[in-house]
């Protein structure tokens, strides 16, 4: 579904990604872990071109999205993204947050968009918040809405950029629960996180990144249970 070849990204002289090759299959849940500054968020943000890669190729559903004239909005419609800081639209109600992009981008008719939105609000357990504004929600609620907002576009893949890092500890659970449900439903997901327990539980594959490249990857039991690379061992010994 996503195929990354020789991906590099520099900010000025600082090379953040030094060459990444990875393939993500339909229905796969890939969890990216690694120390701060290892480039894992940048990698994720390159996948929908929120960061423009310096070199390399990214294919999404067999289309080369890094080619010059490619209309990236077309790919983004099918790639949902959830941010560390939620980024809900504060001047829109919860319902409007969910229906805005479907109506504007996919030209879904408003009644249909609202129906989908209400189903999603039900899924994340926040139907009663439909007419409130984001500022009246707790952090955990905001992030659940943000997930619902991305899902409202009915994407083929979901990208999560440290979705629980900005949350109070007691709210982490409710967000992970929603993500877990999503994984069980077969959604293709790429998740950057520091929640190792969660990674181990839902991940089909764990990617350990350090220094702008993939150091080690494999099924969770292998990466967490028997890491082969010393840097992986070192990292895991600190966080577990």
């Amino acid at each position: 579904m996503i195929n990354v070849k020789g991906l590099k990204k520099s900010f000025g002289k600082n090379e953040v990604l030094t060459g990444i090759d990875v393939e993500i299959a339909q229905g796969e849940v890939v969890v990216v872990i690694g120390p701060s500054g290892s480039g894992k968020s940048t990698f994720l943000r390159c996948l929908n071109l929120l960061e423009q890669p310096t070199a390399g190729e990214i294919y999404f559903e067999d289309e080369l999205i890094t080619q010059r004239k490619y209309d990236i909005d077309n790919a983004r419609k099918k790639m949902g993204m959830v941010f560390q800081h939620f980024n809900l639209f504060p001047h829109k109600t919860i319902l409007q947050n969910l229906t805005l992009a479907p109506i504007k981008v996919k030209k879904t008719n408003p009644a249909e968009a609202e129906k989908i939105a209400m189903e999603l609000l039900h899924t994340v357990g926040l139907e009663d918040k439909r007419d409130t504004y984001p500022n009246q929600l707790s952090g955990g609620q905001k992030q659940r809405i943000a997930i619902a907002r991305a899902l409202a576009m009915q994407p083929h893949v979901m990208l999560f950029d440290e979705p629980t890092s900005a949350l109070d500890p007691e709210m982490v659970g409710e967000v992970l629960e929603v993500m877990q449900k999503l994984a069980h439903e077969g959604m293709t997901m790429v998740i950057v996180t520091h929640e190792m327990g969660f990674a181990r539980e839902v991940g089909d594959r764990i990617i350990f990144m350090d220094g702008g490249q993939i150091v080690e990857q494999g099924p969770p039991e292998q990466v967490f249970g028997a890491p082969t690379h010393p840097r992986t061992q070192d990292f895991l010994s600190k966080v577990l």
Partner: protein
Amino acid sequence: MLFFTVIPLASAAQDNQKVITVGLSADFPPYEFHKKIDGTDQIVGSDVEIAKRIAADMGATLQIQDIPFDSLLPALNSGRIDMIISGMTPTEERRQNVDFSESYYISRQVIMTRVEDKDKYTSVDSLQGASIGVQKGSIQEGIAKDIKDAKLTSVDRIADIVLSLESGRVDAAVMEGPVAEGQVANHDDLAITSATIPDSDTEMAIAVKKGNAELLGHINGTLAKLKQGDQVKKFVQDATALNSGEQQKSNNIFTIFWDYRQYYMKGIQYTLLLSAAGVLFGFLIGLVVSLFRLSNVGILRWIAVTYTEILRGTPMLVQLLIIHYGIAQTFHIEFSVLESGIITLSINSSAYLAEIFRAGIQGVDRGQMEAARSLGMSHGMTMRSIIIPQAVKSVLPAIGNEFVVIIKESSIVSFIGVADLMFQAQAVRSITYSALNPLLIAAAIYFIMTFVLSKLLGMLERRWSVSDKR
């Protein structure tokens, strides 16, 4: 931007009839001055009578525009008015710019001073070293300049000279005889000295645009008729009588306000209209300019930066005069005074609002753009539905503040003759001979408008912020 036509003072022009527009500085009794007749403001005086005769002889409808004296020549040259009849003396300098008719009246110049100084300045020589008030751009200014060691204070309005005399800021004023007589009759503390100014008799003539021989022919024809039988002198006498006839009963500030409340009401309407239009158009233009400023296209950024820097780096008065007179003269586009006023206020405030918007747009969290783009929304769509609404909301207090600023700054449009609050205050000054009180009334009204508006905006802001606690 063309919803409004010219200003009250002018009589309406009929469609198929020729219109002749005379410009004058209506603070110069008995030649031209404002007078409340049957409850409405009119511009009257001997020059107005002459203008009426000229128009009648030509079979044209007369329009009068009240313009500050030193703006009369630019108004004539830019084609906004057809002739100047404003007690103007044909000096060499002026002859280089415009053509003059035969002279229609000769006036003498006198020295006006405070009563207690009446015997101090009995000759021109006694004025040496004294400070002297004159009207800017007037022939008296030239005379006063020739007085040795004199310190000149040049002001726009006769009323300002009176105020300067009464407050002791100047010791004496050089003025036309009949003008000074009108002032002395209304101010007990002023007097005309016995001094005579040699070679100071000055002719008055009518100015037309250079080369307008046809109009000049008509004018000279009418003047020749008037000269037989000394008509002009009679006009001046009648106007002097009219001027002193019904004097202000009391110069009490409340009496003035009550008697001239219609002037002030009309002025408030114009001031509010100008300010509201200025902020509205300034808002729209400013938004576009701020988007240019934040654009990725270099040339658009350059245009926006140049636009804002020039508009913020030059005085609004200069912009106003360039738009009103300069554009008319260069491109032959004639805006009415109100249009010129609105255009100036709009573009001027747009430059400030553009900077406010820029700060507002840049102040919107980057994550908002990323979130919207990640949903597949285009850049333009994101700006319209996500970024700009938030930016505008966050800068609303600053926009309200700009509205308050513009209410005050709009007062400069009185320079080109928009009948705003300041203009009306000046009119009341020249009618009542009260130099200060009409200004105090205007100040009070400006203050009330800005104060009330600030309070209203504050309430609005608090109501909005209720739904916006973070």
